[in-house]
């Protein structure tokens, strides 16, 4: 029977928003008990599709068959939940101060005969679920005390507890390190072997090849294809996603390396950074690798004067600096593209041009007055330079896709024209096309004699773009590799 073989069948799902057709007649089937990857560039329609499955949006047209029920339409997230669809969002949605067990049973409490909350049973069941997944998390620990990876696992446990039949995982890997990822993969496989179907969304193609059975590609709201993972190559998959063959992925060029422009000596921040020294030369792309909590972002913050140093010295262009705040560093020609573009990079309710002109406001002010004409001119110039795909310059950035949002963040720092730019996870969660733009810009910057420092969890991009890579672990510098020396294994060996 079809109904039994396929847990989910989509037929001609269409969904429009003012001005955009987010989904255009999407049809595909998801086999029961498989890991089904869903890929596509930002704006391809993945999120919209998931929101329809989760009961947040409603399809304008088309039919949805789920678990033997024909023509289901989830009017609310609750209905979707009841039917057996669980979503693990990219941003974790747990109640921080509550314990793991409490979170797993939120909205699904077990009561004793007296009508009181039955903690004993719930904790027992929580422990059981966690143990079955082969991991070790204390059910009494508050969620806030767990690492991001473990929080994500708690989200999964929650779904398992609710006996979900279909689990949708929206970029679970975006914030995880390689090792945490392995654990996550183990859990996902185990769930599949227990008969749970998983729809897995990721921008990292490696993961899809490692984990998924089937893959569906969406592009511009259309279904491009659904194929067994074993039958496609990486290049073929990328071609399906972008609709063209991408040129060279990492546009690395040989550039004359100049004198040292930034030097850190013995940087210490108690409990966070331990005696870190390194130097970066003009025209270099310098990579900083390491696990998420290895102190990479903290190092950047310390150098930029955001956090105080307990000891150590920073030299910029050979001169010792003592920044009292980030603003001092900016005035001295440094810049930072922060890791969380939504919260730290952009004012979501402002339009594109206002965001672009935010750092270098001076440039659009004449005689103390912000000139609209200049805001428009520079807004247009830099948006064009980064090839931001947008309805207009007046569009609020919250309506842009992740990749285009990141381009706007980069644009505002290009306008500032910083000599030394630190990019913290510049390509996290953005699509291949936008990534290519960011890489192209990094190359262009160093060509203009600037210096780029990239902090990244994505090893291929560090290996592809950087002249040297520094590896950090638990606040310490574990080593430094030149472009020639560096490979995935060597970095990994230093990371852990």
């Amino acid at each position, binding site marked *: 029977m079809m109904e039994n073989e396929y847990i989910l069948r989509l037929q001609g799902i269409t969904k429009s*928003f*003012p*001005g955009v057709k987010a989904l255009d007649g999407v049809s595909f089937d998801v086999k029961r008990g498989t890991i089904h990857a869903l890929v596509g560039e930002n704006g391809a329609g993945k999120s919209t599709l998931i*929101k329809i499955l989760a009961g*947040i949006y409603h399809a304008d047209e088309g039919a949805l068959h789920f678990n033997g029920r024909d023509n289901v339409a989830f009017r609310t997230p609750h209905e979707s939940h009841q039917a057996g669809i669980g979503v693990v969002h990219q941003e974790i949605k747990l109640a921080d101060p509550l314990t793991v067990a409490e979170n797993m049973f939120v909205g699904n409490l077990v009561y004793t005969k007296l009508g009181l909350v039955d903690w004993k049973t719930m904790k027992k069941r929580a422990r059981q679920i966690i143990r079955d997944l082969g991991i070790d998390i204390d059910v009494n620990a508050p969620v806030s005390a767990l690492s991001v990876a473990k929080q994500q696992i708690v989200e999964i446990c929650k779904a398992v507890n609710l006996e979900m039949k279909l689990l949708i995982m929206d970029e679970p890997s975006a914030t995880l390190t390689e090792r945490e990822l392995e654990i996550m993969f183990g859990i996902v496989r185990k769930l599949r072997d227990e008969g749970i179907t998983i729809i897995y969304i990721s921008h990292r193609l490696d993961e899809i090849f490692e984990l998924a059975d089937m893959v569906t590609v969406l592009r511009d709201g259309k279904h491009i294809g659904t194929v067994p993972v074993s039958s496609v190559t990486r290049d073929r998959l990328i071609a399906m996603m972008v609709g063209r063959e991408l040129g060279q992925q990492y546009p690395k060029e040989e550039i004359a390396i100049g004198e040292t422009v930034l030097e850190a000596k013995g940087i210490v921040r108690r409990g966070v950074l331990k005696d870190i020294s390194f130097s970066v030369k003009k025209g270099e792309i310098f990579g900083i690798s390491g696990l998420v909590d290895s102190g990479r972002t903290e190092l950047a913050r310390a150098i930029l004067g955001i956090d105080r140093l307990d000891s150590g010295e920073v030299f910029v262009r050979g001169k010792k600096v003592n920044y009292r*705040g*980030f*603003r001092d560093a*900016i005035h001295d020609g440094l810049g*930072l593209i*922060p890791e969380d573009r939504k*919260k*730290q*990079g*952009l*004012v*979501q*309710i*402002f339009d594109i041009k*206002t965001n672009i002109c*935010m*750092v270098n*406001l*001076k440039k659009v*002010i004449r005689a*103390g*007055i*912000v000139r609209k004409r200049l805001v428009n001119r520079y807004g247009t110039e830099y948006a064009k330079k980064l090839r931001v795909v947008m309805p207009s310059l007046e569009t609020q950035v*919250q309506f842009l896709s992740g990749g285009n949002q990141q381009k706007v963040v980069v644009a*505002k720092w290009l306008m500032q024209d910083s000599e030394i730019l630190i990019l913290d996870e510049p390509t996290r969660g953005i699509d291949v096309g936008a990534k290519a733009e960011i890489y192209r810009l990094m190359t262009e910057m160093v060509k203009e004699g600037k210096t780029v420092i990239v902090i990244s969890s994505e090893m291929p991009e560090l290996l592809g773009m950087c002249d040297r890579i520094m590896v950090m672990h638990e606040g310490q510098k574990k080593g430094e590799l030149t472009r020639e020396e560096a490979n995935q294994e060597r970095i990994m060996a230093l990371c852990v």
Partner: protein
Amino acid sequence: MSQVGARAAKENPVLKALSKFSKDFMSVLGIIFLGAILSLTTEKFLQWDNLKLILLQSSTVAICALGQAIILLTGNFDLSLGRNVAFTSCLGALLMKGMLYDGMAPMNPTLVILIILAAGTFIGVCNGLLTAYVGLPAFIATLGLQNVCYGLAKVITNATPIATFPNSIAWLGRGFAFPEILKKNLPWCVVLMLGIYIFAQFIFTKTKLGRNIYAVGGNKEAAFFAGINVKRYTFLAFVMAGFLAAFSGVVLMSRLNSVAITNGQSYEFDAVIGSIIGGISLTGGKGRLIGTMFGIIFVMLLFNGMTQWKVDAFMQDVLKGIVLVIAVTLDVLRNRKRV
């Protein structure tokens, strides 16, 4: 349904323009609408004296409300503004009449005005320091200052009203601009209100100070990472509000020619109602300051209307509370994000 409506608005330029106008100037539409109802249902409303009175009453509230609006732009809130008005106007009255302590001589009115403007600004400085630099929640810091101001007003006046001030300050609240030409139809305080709002509107859309305050309110963290001194701009917003509250106190003192500790009571709430109706968002970073002025005029129109409709004075407070809740609800609905 709403999406269908939104789509229609997107496609039809007339509807689009209308929808944008109504979003930006909901308060103006509200004034027209309410004014129409009032003129149809009451006799007195349309009389020029009544309209003038509404504008007069609006002016002091609106001047104070501008401060609240600026603070709302930073995503904060000031509970002390109304009591700031009370304290500064009481202090001014005592200084002008030489009643602050036994044997005190009356002071020069101009000097007094400068002193109380400084006093009001100082209260703003306290709020700003506590909120921006010490890191207290604005709610607590300004609640504290609210009580301090009210307490001080009671202490210095012994809670008794004080009346009749030198004629030299009468023009501020009771005088008319170009009395011969305009036949005493344009009160100075209305001119002041307009002037201050136009000035503020200009500053906040066209200068670094204004843009950065919007940025801080729009997203504090992103503003920080764009090199904006978040603390300083938050602080400045409170300082400006303190100054404006004191200024409102000066005008109020002159307009009523008497002061009492109840002066400025609930101005901070009226200000919030006015600001939100005027399009300022409670979450910060959004809205036009000039809208607040229209919002306040709308609120005063409503109060005037309630009096015309002979709504009991105590009942008016109840309705005011309801209006506040409705206004905030509108703000929440307006800013509801697509999930």
